[in-house]
């Protein structure tokens, strides 16, 4: 009787041991080697997926963003300007500059001023524009459209078979245009590799020469967005030039 408790303890203990051993044995049988391998494989897949997400977040999303950030006008303008730049100095002015700087309004055309170039250079420019999918609305003959430019009339280019958008191109017609070409800038905020007329020049033209409600709103917008680039003395000086030469 007096050894009962120890023996019971022993039995209990051994019972416990046997129970654990049985459980382990059961567990081992239940989760066969095949299942364990499957679980390990699944875990590995999860890690690989998580790592690929991490990498894509770092490297692929910015690339995706760059592509999707180009709107129809941006793409059209950059492709066109890339060709024109090979043949002459140019600037993009007015509406598209404001839209490329973020203003939420529409436009049908992009205004481009180019330096005067000889006919043979213009023919080569038109040939490359044609090869790259652009067509002139007035005439497919470069010799004809060159006459328009000499008459200070703008010519319009679109992508072949499309009505919009248009690139409206004209020659620099006076010292004011030549001055604009000399002051041309690339604007980081636009994210475009395109030459623009200066901010001061665009504000002055819109406030002093064009003056429609849309142009005055554009000028106000440019003043706000490019606050640190706005030089009132420069704008005043350009306005004086406009009065003297254009008005």
């Amino acid at each position, binding site marked *: 009787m007096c050894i009962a408790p120890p023996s019971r303890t022993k039995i209990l203990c051994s019972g416990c041991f046997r129970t654990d051993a049985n459980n382990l044995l059961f567990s081992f049988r239940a989760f066969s080697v095949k299942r364990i391998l499957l679980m390990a494989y699944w875990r590995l897949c999860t890690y690989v997926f998580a790592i690929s997400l991490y990498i894509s977040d770092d490297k692929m999303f910015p690339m995706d963003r760059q592509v999707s950030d180009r709107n129809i006008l941006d793409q059209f303008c950059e492709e066109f300007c890339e060709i024109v730049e090979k043949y002459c100095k140019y600037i993009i002015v007015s509406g598209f500059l404001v839209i490329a700087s973020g203003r939420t309004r529409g436009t049908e055309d992009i205004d481009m001023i180019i330096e005067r170039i000889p006919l043979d250079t213009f023919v080569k420019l038109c040939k490359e524009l044609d090869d790259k999918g652009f067509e002139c609305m007035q005439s497919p003959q470069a010799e004809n459209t060159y006459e328009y430019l000499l008459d200070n009339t703008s010519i319009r280019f679109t992508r072949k078979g499309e009505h919009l958008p248009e690139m409206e191109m004209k020659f620099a017609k006076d010292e004011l245009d030549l001055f604009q070409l000399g002051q041309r800038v690339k604007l980081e905020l636009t994210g475009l590799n395109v030459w623009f007329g200066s901010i001061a020049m665009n504000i002055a033209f819109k406030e002093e020469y064009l003056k429609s409600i849309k142009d005055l*709103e554009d000028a106000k917008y440019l003043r706000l967005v490019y606050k640190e680039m706005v030089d009132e003395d420069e704008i005043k000086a350009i306005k004086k030039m406009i009065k003297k030469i254009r008005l």
Partner: protein
Amino acid sequence: MRASHQDQIERWAEFVRNNPATWKKIHTPFINAIFAKHKEFLERLRKTPHGEEKIKEMFGLQ
């Protein structure tokens, strides 16, 4: 200029200044939508009587 519209221009200009990396995300679909709507409209107009003529006249193609 309408006062409310002035405010909108100012607010948006501030947003563009303060968010140089993100404003295009909002701006791009807006600009693209203008061209998409234009294209859709031309397709509808083309299917109407004299639609093709009207389009040619609109773009000075006659």
